[in-house]
Each structure stands twice: as C-alpha cells, then as structure tokens.
C-alpha cells in the first residue's frame, strides 16, 4: 500500500529524512513516533506527494513518486484521508460544510453529500453539532470533525499527523479509539505522535524516527 525504498529528502538547511525503508500494508494500524523535529511530518508529506524524495522512491497505491505526473497528484490525494497537524477545521464554515469539502472537490451531488456527511458525523458522535461553527466546538470535537472529514471519501488510508497534539490524555485516547474503530472496518491508519506513553500499551505497530533516521519498526 505504502512503501519507502531508501528514501532521502533534505531541506536546504540540511535537515530531513535519510535512507528510509518503510512498508505499510493495507488495513494496518501503525504509529509513527519520534520527538519534535524528528521528520514525522516530512514523511507524511512524502506520502501525499507534497514533497518528492531526493533519492529513492515512494509508492502509494498505484502511484510512484518518480513517475507521477503533476496533474495526477490530486487523484493520488483523493484516495487518502488527511488529518493535519496545524490545519484544523476551516473557521469560515460550519462543521457540516467542513466535512463536506472533500466531496465537493470530487463533485458529488447534494443528496449524496448530505447522506455521507451525516453518516460520518454519527460515526464520530457529532451529528447533533452539524450546524456548529468550529469556534463553537471543543478541541476534541474539532479533531473528531477533522477525522470525519478525512474519512468522508471512504479512503483506504488515513494519514493522521499528530491528531492528539493539543488534547488532554483522555480526549486523546478517545481519538485513538475512534481511529481504531475505523481501522477495524479495513482502513489503514498511519498516525504520528511524539507521545510515546500514550501509545505504548496499545499493541499496535510503531515506527520510530529520530533526526530523520528510522530507529525501529
């Protein structure tokens, strides 16, 4: 599903990720763990091809980083559910419209959008807050909204970059449990975090990165 073959990406300042080998299988639940600045977001960006390797190849589904045409990148991204580290919900529209955004991009019709969005809001337990604007939601609710948005297109993989970053431990745990539930239905999940304590008990695969180098997987 996702594979890194000897991938190196260097930022102009010399930071980056180096000689990375990773293989992620369909339906797998993995954590990408490492301290701040280790290169987790960099790896995520290499997956959705916001960055391209200086060396090596990244394969995601049928797309290869060294062959993909620029105008095919949107297609690659439509199969991925993204949950971002910094960018949360858009503040200029309500929760429903936020979750609906990926469906507008692919041009679904109104009814389809409504059914799909409501089904996911039920899934993440926010169906009664569909009309709420992000500033009217708690941090945990916003993050669940983001997950709903990541899932709305029924992707085969979810990339969750630090989805628990700003949440208290129990809310963070709820988010992880939500991702686990989604994973049980067959969606692969790759979640980054720097909070080792949060995940060590969970028994999922974890890939550890430090200073851009994979330490353990």
């Amino acid at each position: 599903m996702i594979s890194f073959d000897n991938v190196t990406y260097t930022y102009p300042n010399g930071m980056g990720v180096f000689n990375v080998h990773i293989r992620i299988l369909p339906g797998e639940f993995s954590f990408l763990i490492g301290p701040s600045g280790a290169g987790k977001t960099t790896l995520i960006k290499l997956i959705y091809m916001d960055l391209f390797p200086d060396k090596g190849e990244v394969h995601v589904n049928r797309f290869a980083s060294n062959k993909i045409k620029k105008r095919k990148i949107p297609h690659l991204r439509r199969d991925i559910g993204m949950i971002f580290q910094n960018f949360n919900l858009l503040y200029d529209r309500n929760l429903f419209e936020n979750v609906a955004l990926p469906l507008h991009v692919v041009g679904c019709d109104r009814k389809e959008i409504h059914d799909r969005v409501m089904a996911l809001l039920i899934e993440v337990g926010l169906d009664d807050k569909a009309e709420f604007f992000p500033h009217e939601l708690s941090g945990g609710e916003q993050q669940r909204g983001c997950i709903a948005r990541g899932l709305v297109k029924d992707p085969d993989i979810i990339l969750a970059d630090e989805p628990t970053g700003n949440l208290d431990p129990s809310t963070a745990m709820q988010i992880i449990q939500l991702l686990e539930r989604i994973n049980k239905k067959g969606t692969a999940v790759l979640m980054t975090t720097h909070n080792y304590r949060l995940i060590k008990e969970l028994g999922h695969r974890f890939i550890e990165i430090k200073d851009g180098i994979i330490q353990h997987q």
Partner: protein
Amino acid sequence: MSKLLFLFHEGFRNVWRHKLTAVTAIMSVFLVLLVIGIFIVIQQNSHHLIDRIRSEYKIEVFFENEATDSEAQESIELMKSLDGIQSVKLITKQDALNIYQNEFGEDLNEMLGFNPLPASAVIMLEKSGNTEVNVEPLIRELNQLPNVGEVVYEGTLIRRVEYFYNTSLRIITYIAIGLLIITIIVISNTVKLSVYAKQDLIHDLRSIGATKLFIKTPFIIEGMLEGMIGALLAIISILLVVHGSNAYFNDLVTFNIEFNLIGIAWILIIAVIIGFIGSYRGIRVLLK
C-alpha cells in the same frame, strides 16, 4: 453541476467576507465604467453633431464658362465615380441665372444680352462616421477633370473640425485605457487579499486532491462578480442620467441622447474582462 454551485457559493462568500475591500473594488469599477460609459454615450451620439458639421462640407465646382450643360453633366458623371462622394447635383447655367434672379432680383440675361454665369456642381461628401474626412486628395482629382474651372471648399473648417474630433477621440481612448488598468490593479489586489486570507482553505483543498482550477475558480468568480456589480451600477446611473437629460433638454435640442443595447453590452463586456484579468493577476500567487 453541484460542483459549479459550490464554486459560485465560494466566490460569493469571498466577496461577502471582504465586504470593505469588495466595496472599494466595486466602487472603483463603478466609477471607471461610469466614465467609460459616458465616453461611449458621447461617442455614440457625437455623430449627430459631427454629421451636422460635416454637412457644411459641401464642395462647389464651377465649370469653365464656355462649357455647356451637357459637357458639365459628363464631368459630373466622372465625379460620381470618385471615392468619398455621396452625391453631386448639377446647377445648369439656367439654374444659376434663376438663383441669381431670386437673390438679387435682376435678370442678368436681359441686362447683358447673354448668360455670364457658369454651370456648377454641388458635391455632398460621404459621411464617414468616426473616420477622419480628408478632402485634399479629392480636390486635386476634381481639379484634373475636364471643364473644371474652379473648386471652392471650406478647407480650414474641415481641417479644424476633423483635427479636433479625432484628437478628442484619441484622448478619450487613452484616458479610458488608463482607468481600466487602474481598475484591474484594484481588483487584483482585493483578490490577492482574499487569497492570502484563505491560505488554510487553499492548503486543505490542495491536500485533499482539489485541482488547481477548482481552487482558483472561486477567486475568479469573486473578481468577475465585483466587476459585474460595478458595471450594473454604472449602467443604471448612465440610464438615469441619459433619460433625465433627455427629458430636461427636450425643448433645447432636436435629437435624443441614445444609450442603446450596444453601449450596455460594451460596458458589461469590459466589466467581465477587467474582472477576469484582475482576478487572474490576483491569484498568480497561487501558481506555484
């Protein structure tokens, strides 16, 4: 279809979110199109005036004294084939005599025992719309025709009027182009602001697989919408002014000022074009 609806909704939302800058942009489009609209009205109506002045542009050709009416008629046939001539009227020796008698009350033929007046021709020039009338070459050709004695025309008047008319049109065009450029810059700046304010949306759209076109369209709609609103305001104002002054000056002038569909269409077309170019310049920051 629902995609398009979404994009339009986003475009309208952009305008609404940046009401103040949008109002600035709309006002500047409005003012510029108002000025341009007035230019269009002037341009569309100045032919009333210029045509009246040009009707004074008649050329009189006096034939040689010994030329007979039929020889004069032959030369007139030749004149009719020249460029720029609308009509030629023969004034026979007898006609000339009658005119003289009407004006001065004396019968020259009786007084002198012969008719001293030559036959002549009155030439009306073609009205050439907005293009400059230049009579000098025509005069030269007329002088070369057989039996032509003297050609009389208002050279200085023609030159002055034509020079003034053409210079005014040119200056108006330059001013209009200058104003259009300013408006394009204003629109592109509002759109740019809106693009900067929407960095998070753009980032999200990119990473969920929206195409560039999809991301850009709302901003283009935003700019075109501002252009169109400005244009509508300008059209309404011009219609009001034109109707008002037609009612007011009804007794003073013989013609009505026209502001027709062609004028309206021009303003709308200009609005769409500056809206498009303006917003396209504005979203260049997005082209990475």
